């Protein structure tokens, strides 16, 4: 059966979704990622969806769930690379993706993850912004 690989880079997990996911595969990714956060003690999760041609309500819910679960497990999730047509469609569909942090690309995503993790470690940083 297909599986979406999860790469570990430092204290971050990186997932790049390169296939047109059917629902079971999306659920499996959700489970795999949640387990991997615990076993690898990751602090950040980056999900690259630049290859995804659509995000429907099911995949949207998966992204929301991953963000919520990682938060409970003391990790931050950032979704990167959403295509403009996907963003337009998602808003019209009525899916707000509240709770999911996003960044334009992998570089900015890593930056955001570092920032979010540092913020949590040192609350004083937040006051200076």
């Amino acid at each position, binding site marked *: 059966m297909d599986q979406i690989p999860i790469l570990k880079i430092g204290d971050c997990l990186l997932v790049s979704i390169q296939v*047109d*996911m059917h629902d079971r595969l999306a659920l499996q990714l959700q489970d795999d990622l949640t387990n991997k956060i615990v076993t690898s003690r990751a602090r950040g999760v980056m999900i690259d969806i630049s290859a995804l041609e659509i995000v*429907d*309500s099911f995949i949207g*819910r998966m992204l929301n769930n991953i963000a919520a679960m990682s938060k409970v497990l003391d990790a931050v999730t950032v979704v990167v690379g959403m295509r*403009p*047509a996907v963003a337009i469609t998602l808003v*019209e569909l*009525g*899916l707000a993706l509240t709770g999911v942090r996003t960044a334009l690309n992998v570089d900015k995503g890593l930056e955001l993850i570092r920032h979010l993790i540092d913020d949590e470690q040192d609350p004083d940083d937040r006051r200076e912004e």
Partner: protein
Amino acid sequence: MIVEKSETLPVRVSEDVVRVRQLVRVHAVKAGFSLVDQTKIVTAASEIARNTIDYGGGGEARIESVTLGIRKGVRLTFSDKGPGIEDIERALRDGYTTGGGLGLGLSGAKRLSNEFDIQSAPGQGTTVSLARWK
């Protein structure tokens, strides 16, 4: 309305939803849809195909390339022989679900379509048809 090409796919397992998405994309590209319009109808198709499985117990999807005068479009018809929808108006409301979803499937797909119609009654199955024009 003239039907230029009509194809039918089974919608029974979650892999079928992917196949429906891919075939709808082919028809949308051939009709000359912009990338945004392609994305909208493929997303709508994905939502309704999933409903056909989750609520209708499976069925089929008819995907058609249509023309009306000089306008080109894609028309989709999803039909199942499932339990049917008791209250269509309520089913079309954002956030209403009898399953575990977000309740955006029908209402969202309607917003992403130019034409949208549901025929359903308890015990009679459900047919959802939608169309998007270039």
